[in-house]
């Protein structure tokens, strides 16, 4: 309880909206292990923000199939910082405290660099995160270069993953190669974030 309160209180964000091609809204927060995470401090690294709720069938699609974990492993292996955020509020029933968040993520085999329980929804609202999953990619200069869905098939069926176009992998490959992101905004699909 105390840890969760500290986590919620420590989150701060800048005021401007998340817009592709513009600086990503700055934020700082304590992650589920108590480490300070600041977007400003991650300049020079490519950053992925992933909104999560493990009770959502669309999230289950990507974790049950290990699709999300493989993406996390592949790209953190290339120096990307992957931050998984739960902005579900206590009232919505989607909130997980730090201990539970760590446990669920370990059980799922998550390879994320940080987990943040954004109970107040401060980071989620700053990014206008709508769904779980909802994915954002920020380049080394701190500019938002991708905002949208994980892939092209708006279903809960894991069998669709293989034939989908993975927008996040494509954006990361392009940004890591120093290229412009060709598909920079798509409609996210999934359950609501449950602010």
């Amino acid at each position, binding site marked *: 309880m105390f840890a969760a309160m500290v986590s919620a209180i420590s989150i701060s964000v800048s005021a401007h909206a998340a817009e592709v091609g513009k600086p990503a809204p700055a934020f700082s927060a304590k992650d589920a292990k108590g480490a300070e995470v600041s977007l400003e401090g991650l300049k020079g690294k490519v950053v992925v923000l992933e909104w999560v709720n493990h*009770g*959502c*069938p*669309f999230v*289950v699609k990507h974790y049950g199939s290990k699709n999300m974990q493989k993406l996390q492993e592949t790209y953190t292996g290339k120096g990307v910082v992957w931050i998984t955020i739960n902005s579900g509020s206590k009232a*919505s*029933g*989607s909130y997980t405290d730090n201990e539970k968040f760590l446990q669920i993520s370990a059980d799922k085999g998550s390879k994320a660099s940080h987990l943040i329980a954004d109970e107040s929804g401060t980071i989620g609202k700053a990014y206008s995160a*709508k*769904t779980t999953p909802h994915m954002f990619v920020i380049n080394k200069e701190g500019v938002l270069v991708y905002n*949208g869905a994980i892939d092209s098939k*708006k*279903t*809960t*069926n894991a069998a669709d993953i293989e034939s989908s176009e993975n927008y996040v992998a494509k954006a990361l490959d392009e940004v890591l190669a120093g290229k412009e992101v060709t598909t920079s*905004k*798509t*409609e*996210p*699909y*999934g*359950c*609501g*974030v*449950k*602010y």
Partner: protein
Amino acid sequence: MLYCGMRTIFLLILLMSSSLWSQETGHATAELWLAPPRVEEGKPTVIPAAIRMVYEKGWHGYWVNPGEGGMKTEVTWKLPAGLSAGALQFPAPKREMTGELACYGYVGEVLLPVLFTVTGALPKEGDIEATVSWLACDEKGCASGEATVKANVASVADASRAAAVAAAFAALPVADEKLKLQVTEADGWVTLLVTGAEHRDLLGAEIFPVTEQALDPRESILLQKTATGLAARVKKNEYATGPLTQLSLVIVPKAPQRALAVEWKK
């Protein structure tokens, strides 16, 4: 012996049932309802049918354009030889909220019509098998569901189910050649102008976009009277890529009348 005979009769009744089973996962049930084959001189024989979805109280399912988040109901078929399935059709939806997401869908019971066409002689036996996948959500969460439902083509259609299937077809949005839709856009707003509607009472009618990622789903789109016809102004969908070039809409009159389907192409 008597037991075996009764068992056989029971199994026959079960097999002849027009919907072999429905399943209760994902906060909804699915069934396959058949109407009797329609045989007309000079036309292929067809079997009208519907997937009947019943959502638990407080939960909703999704239209062909699910809006924000959500997922349309889909079916994959296993059919007897000589039968082909048309597209699953969707009656006009209602606006629903899934937490903070605006979507288009259904509550309670909905029948999604489908027409089977008999390509040769009407099969005397055989199951039509549908694997139905859906998403159901309430204010707090979502659940996916899947059910495999069957109906035997030789089964005698239950009269009340046949009537419900016929009513579902009769309620589908229908085109009206007199109605013309014009679409213009400027500064992130889209104006929909409907003309040729003098013979209909469409004032205050609600518009639902069949075309995805075209119009913002967060506000109701209602037709208002203007000097040039009935019009509605709506925010363009933030995920639309480039200018709109095509738009399919369903118009639901305020009074209980059949919904209308209108199309626009640039």
